[in-house]
């Protein structure tokens, strides 16, 4: 490849009009916060990109796993919380397992997902964010998850059914549900756990509500 830097003819100064992002919108605050909460040593990352190479879905991500680490180091909070990566990460733990310096990448992404869920930022992968929320709500309601109840609750969330019909996946999913019903895999009802009251109490306590 032609090297423009070593060629005095084409070498240019850095464009003074280019908008440059500040390193860290709030200094080290964001890095220190995540470092403290996850217990991960971020300075151990030397950007070898092994996490990205191990990731089975890095091709679908807007920010690659190694970029996530770098962005945290730079304190680019908004970009991280607005990314689709934090929602489509499968938590398959490949990145964590193969990191030579024991940076727990999956835990960091998981932590960012929790931060995004409790922030006012609209998640980029809304359907996945809504699904997680619905799952937890159904769990609190009955103590156990029944696939039919879960999917019914999921589809009745605002926009979900509408988007599914619009992009044509609804028809396919409906057909799949019928197949599973016929095969006896989709159970229309399931017993609730007897511990549902205990779970609800614990859940409301974690949210600071006293019941």
């Amino acid at each position, binding site marked *: 490849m032609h090297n423009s830097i070593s060629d005095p003819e084409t070498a240019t100064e850095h464009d003074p009009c280019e908008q440059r992002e500040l390193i860290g919108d709030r200094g080290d605050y964001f890095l220190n916060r995540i470092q403290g909460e996850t217990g991960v040593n971020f300075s151990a990352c030397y950007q070898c990109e092994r996490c990205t190479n191990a990731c089975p879905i890095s091709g679908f991500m807007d920010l690659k796993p190694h970029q996530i680490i770098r962005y945290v180091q730079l304190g680019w909070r908004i970009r991280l919380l607005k990314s689709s990566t934090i929602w489509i990460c*499968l938590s*398959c733990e490949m990145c964590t397992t193969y990191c030579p310096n024991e940076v727990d990448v999956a835990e960091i992404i998981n932590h960012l997902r*929790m931060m995004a869920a409790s922030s006012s930022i609209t998640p980029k*992968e809304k359907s996945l964010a809504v699904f997680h929320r619905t799952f937890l709500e159904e769990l609190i309601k009955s103590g*156990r998850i029944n696939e039919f109840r879960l999917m019914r609750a999921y589809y009745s969330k605002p926009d979900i059914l509408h988007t599914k019909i619009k992009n044509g996946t609804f028809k396919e999913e409906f057909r799949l549900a019928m197949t599973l019903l016929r095969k006896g*895999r989709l159970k229309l009802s399931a017993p609730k756990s007897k511990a549902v009251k205990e*779970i609800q109490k614990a859940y409301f306590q974690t949210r600071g509500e006293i019941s």
Partner: protein
Amino acid sequence: MKLSFYPGCSLEGMANDYCESIYAVFKDLGIDLVEIEDWSCCGATAAHSLSEVMSVILPARNLAAAEKMGLDIICPCSLCFNRLLFSQKMIKKKIFHIPWHVTGNIRVLDMTRFLAKPSIIKLIKQCILKPLDSLKVVCYYGCQMVRPPKITGYADYENPQTLDHIAAAAGAQVIDWSYKSTCCGASIGIGRREIVESLSKRILQKTQQAGAEAIVVSCPLCQSNLDIVQKDRSQPPTPIFYITELLRLSFNDKGNPKWFKMHVADPVPLLKAKGLL
């Protein structure tokens, strides 16, 4: 021998065949399984995605219930197994207040590792009436059972062997392959169908390249992903068996075809062609 059994939500619904086959196999092996009383969901992906506290205390309730019974837990679902172990680790760190009395000292056993113990393998070999020696299979472990090794305790996380040992004990021809613990896409199919399809189809393609006729799994979500992706029937089906379904088939002259009806990729033609059904 007596063990407490934590089935998990999938085994009540989508993977009901798995649950029944586990009970049947353990009955044949003479091991008592006692379902944890009032067990509740482990929180799965949702709890650890949204609330760290919930991801610790939800499994902790089941650990507490098993401790009350005083029996080690056997866990067939990979994710439940992973979440229970994670919760146990956090309980010992004493970071969160757990509303239930729990010490975290009970052992959580992943079902395949339990069955692959030399003593149990010996027991399995004694029970076999009809070895599956004509069946060529690959074993697929998925993610949560083996990774991260710090939590699951798998030393051979790159090339796990437990399912291979069990399937080989049942007489099947186990083929070695490189996709044992490559992710199948997990629950992402809910929002991004194309990701789960690309990952699962690659695993099926590699199965055929390895020369296997079926995949042996132990995770209910892996099974449904790999099974459901074959719903269009564009290619000859690659049946996805739970390990206990195969064991039961080899233990019994007449397996239970009722379980096989629940599969999307129909295993009956393959088993009939091999003279196993």
